[in-house]
Every structure is written in structure tokens, then in C-alpha cells.
């Protein structure tokens, strides 16, 4: 049992086989998963769906998932990006969003999602591409922010 149990997670991933893997991992963590594989569907769900968190693959083949991220920023829903390119692969204004390195692995996914859900301020979009807005749980300066170690199970 983890704090992820029963959480509704929006998974945006455009490759069938990869989506199946990520869905299984989230399901095994106790999440209820809603998949979108196309940008239009993902936008619809992000605007109208009820979620506790979202996992966005950055590269959706012929599109990027940034418009979905913008909707989630607006709704103050916590989310993370999944990409094989790391933070540097993101456009600068999105670089305060936590990044899950692809290929998907269950432990880092669990760790990041827990941290995301525990954090009181969801990730925000930078107004100045060069200035990080930071986040309480990343900087770990706020007394209310829980501290995690990557090597200990949550």
C-alpha cells in the first residue's frame, strides 16, 4: 500500500507498446489509469477529467504534449514529464516540471509521483525561461516539505 493507492492518473503516451508498459506499472502501484494516446484526446481529458496527477510523454510523434501541460498548469494539477532526453530536452519554460527518465521504470515513477502528490505547490510554468520558480519539494527548504531519498522505498 502506498499513497498512490486509488489515485486517478492521466497517462499520455503515444506508442501502444510503451503505453501498455506504463499503464501496467501505474496499475501495479494501485493507481486508476486513464490513457490518452493522441494530443486532441489528451487535451479533452486534461480539460474536463478528474485526476490526482498526470504523466505526460513529451514527444507524441507529430506533436509535443506542451498544450496539455498548459491546461494542467491552469488547473493546478500536478504532473510530470516522461522523456528520454532529460530536463535539457524540455523547452525552458517547462523545466520546473519533474522529469521521469524514459524508458519507464516503476521505482522512479513511484518516487516522483509520491513526491509530486506530497508537494503543496504543484509545478508552475516559468514566466522567465531562464529563472527557475523552484518548488518546495525540490529545494527541500520548506519545513512542511517531506524529505525523500531516492534509495529508500516510500
Amino acid at each position, binding site marked *: 500500500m502506498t499513497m498512490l493507492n486509488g489515485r486517478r492518473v492521466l497517462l499520455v503516451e503515444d*506508442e501502444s507498446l510503451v503505453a501498455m508498459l506504463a499503464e501496467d506499472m501505474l496499475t501495479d502501484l494501485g493507481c486508476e489509469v486513464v490513457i490518452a494516446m493522441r494530443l486532441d484526446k489528451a487535451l479533452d481529458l486534461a480539460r474536463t477529467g478528474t485526476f490526482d496527477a498526470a504523466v505526460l510523454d513529451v514527444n507524441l510523434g507529430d506533436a509535443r504534449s506542451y498544450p496539455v501541460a498548459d491546461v494542467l498548469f491552469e488547473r493546478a494539477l500536478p504532473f510530470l514529464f516522461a522523456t528520454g532526453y532529460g530536463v535539457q530536452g524540455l523547452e525552458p519554460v517547462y523545466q520546473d516540471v519533474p522529469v521521469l527518465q524514459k524508458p519507464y521504470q516503476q521505482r522512479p515513477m513511484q518516487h516522483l509521483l509520491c513526491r509530486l502528490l506530497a508537494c503543496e505547490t504543484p509545478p508552475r510554468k516559468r514566466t522567465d525561461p531562464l529563472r527557475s520558480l523552484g518548488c518546495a519539494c525540490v529545494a527541500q527548504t520548506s519545513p512542511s516539505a517531506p524529505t525523500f531519498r531516492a534509495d529508500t522505498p516510500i
Partner: protein
Amino acid sequence: MERITAVPHSRQPLRSSAEAAASLATLRRGNQLFETERRLNAVLNNASVSIFLMDDRQHCIYMNRAAEQLTGFTLTEVLERDCPLHDIVHHTYPDGRPFPLSECAIDRAFPQNNHERGEEVFVHADGHFYPVGFTASPIRDDEANIIGTIIEVRDISEEKAAAERQRLLLNELNHRVKNTLATVQSIAAQTFRGQTDAAARSVFDARMVALSTAHNVLVADNWESASLRSVTERVLAPHLLAEIDPHRFRIAGPDARLHPKVAVTLSMALHELMTNAAKYGALSVPEGHVSITWTLAPLDDGRQRLDLTWEENGGPEVTPPSRKGFGSRLIERQLPMEFDGTAEIDYRRAGLVCRLEIPLIALGWMGQELIAGQASL
């Protein structure tokens, strides 16, 4: 020849005797000529493309500033040599052999039509070789006789280098993808040695091979698309090889170019159907057969929809599976979501039927149509 020399290299001042004798109208015409010449020189000497004006002996009688920079020769030097331009800028093959004028494509293509194109390798004044693209057009006299040629020339070193770089990258990509798949297969083999049953391993290996095969089809067309027919044939190939009677398969439908994403997912879906048929369905008994047929229907937005039917007959009586496995999850759930289409598997008693409707993704990259359109002009 009059026309050719009408675009002179240097300004000729009007002769004073003529000026004195000229009527006002002639004077005005003279001024207009002078003005026209100045404008033409401004155009020619600011053009980034090299322009050569050739007479009927292939001697260059004019070249603009870009042409001087390209070749490393000044117009004065070229005029002084008094020989075909070929012997000045095109006299040696890149491998060092002499390049006689009689073998020159530009010379032989002494153009009958406007805008005849080609590519050659020129020799710079300092001795280095550089690739060029040329466009040649005839100049005619009042009787339409060809009296010379205008040749436009561009240095295409950068384009050549870019094409070469792309070729290397594609080769590297082909190699990497295949190598990565083979590596994954090896890691799986090492990791699960003795820990999983051989049946599971062989299912995994077959899926890896299907994935790898799907990528082979993409390599054939530089990763831009894959032929629907070869996707289908390659999925069936392992079974076609093992089968004595090829009539157990019927494949019919118009070929289409598939976007790489469609090609890979469809390959995997067909592989799962194939495996299922061999294990439980029509291909598990000698008299069963499979037909794969498809049509292409036009959509309102100009794309096409692939309607594909997989139908098994003559196999053992079908009972719907008690548990949904990887194959049915991929086909019935993921595939429609990935392509905004539909998919259904009907576990008909007489044989499994699978119907897929996949709106085909438009091919190509942004701006490709534009470039292709320009090239065909």
C-alpha cells in the same frame, strides 16, 4: 553576337563625335541605354548565383562578380586565355585525369531548351575541386539560331555535405535500431536463462523478431514510410516459409504507404494474430486457411482509411479466450486509441475474424510538399 555584347562588362562612354551629331532623341536613347546597362550591371554583380555568358565556341565572354568569386578567375583573365571556359574551370576530373571538352556534359548539353540542368565538379583557380549545379539556356538571334548560352552555376558543396551527413545518420540509425533490438534480446536471454520456461522465451523472441522485421521495412524507405503489402508479407514470411501449401493464405488489397508508427503497430498486431492462428486457430490444422484482405476508403480530410479484415476458416471450432492476453489488448484497445480508429476481434465459431479500421497518418515532414513542388518546377 550583337545581343551578347549588349550586356558589356565595362561601361563604354558614348563617343563624343556621335554625341555632337546626335539629335535630341538619339541622345535620350543613349542615356536610356546607359541607364539600362547600369541597372543590369547592378543586378548581375549583386546576384549570388554565378552567371556565365558563352558564345557559340563555348568561350566565356562575360561573367558576373559571383562567377569570378566562384571560379577564382577574373573576367579579364578568362578573356585573355581566349579558349573554351571548360579548359579554364572544368579541365580535370576529380580523380586527376584530364577532362577533354568533348566529354563535357555542359558542352554536349548545348541547350536546345531553356533551363537544362545538371551537376558537375569544377576546378578552382587554386586547384581545389568543388561541386556545382548548373542551369543552361540558349541565346538566339533574330532568326532563332542559337548563338550562345547563358549558364547559371551554384556551388552545391553544402548541399552535398548535408546529403552525405544525412546518409551517414540514416546508416547509423539503421544500425543502432537493429543493434538495440538485438541487445535487448540478448539481455532478456541472459537474464531469464533457466528462470522462465522455454515457451515464454520463444514467444518473447518471436515478438522481438516481429518488431525487428517491422523496422526492416522502414529502412527500405529511409524511415519515411513502409509499404502495406511488404508489412503484411513480412509478418507472414516465417509461416510462408514453413508452409508447403501457400494457398492457405490469401492476401489481397491495394498497396499503400504507411506512416512508420502505423507500420510498427500493425506489424505487431498481425504478428499476434498470426501466432494465435498457428497455436489455436486455422493454422493449427493442415486444412485451415487465412485470408487477409483490405480496402482503402477516402476520408473527408483527404487522408485514407485502411479497412483490413483477417479471417480464419477451416480451423478447429473457436471458443472465446477466458483471459485477454497481450495480443487482444494491443489490437482491441491500444491500436484504436493510437490511431483514432476501431478494432474488433470476433471469435466466430467457424474461425476468428478481426476487423481493423485505421485512418492513415499523413506521410512526410513539415514543408516536404513545398520542397517537392519546387523541385518539380
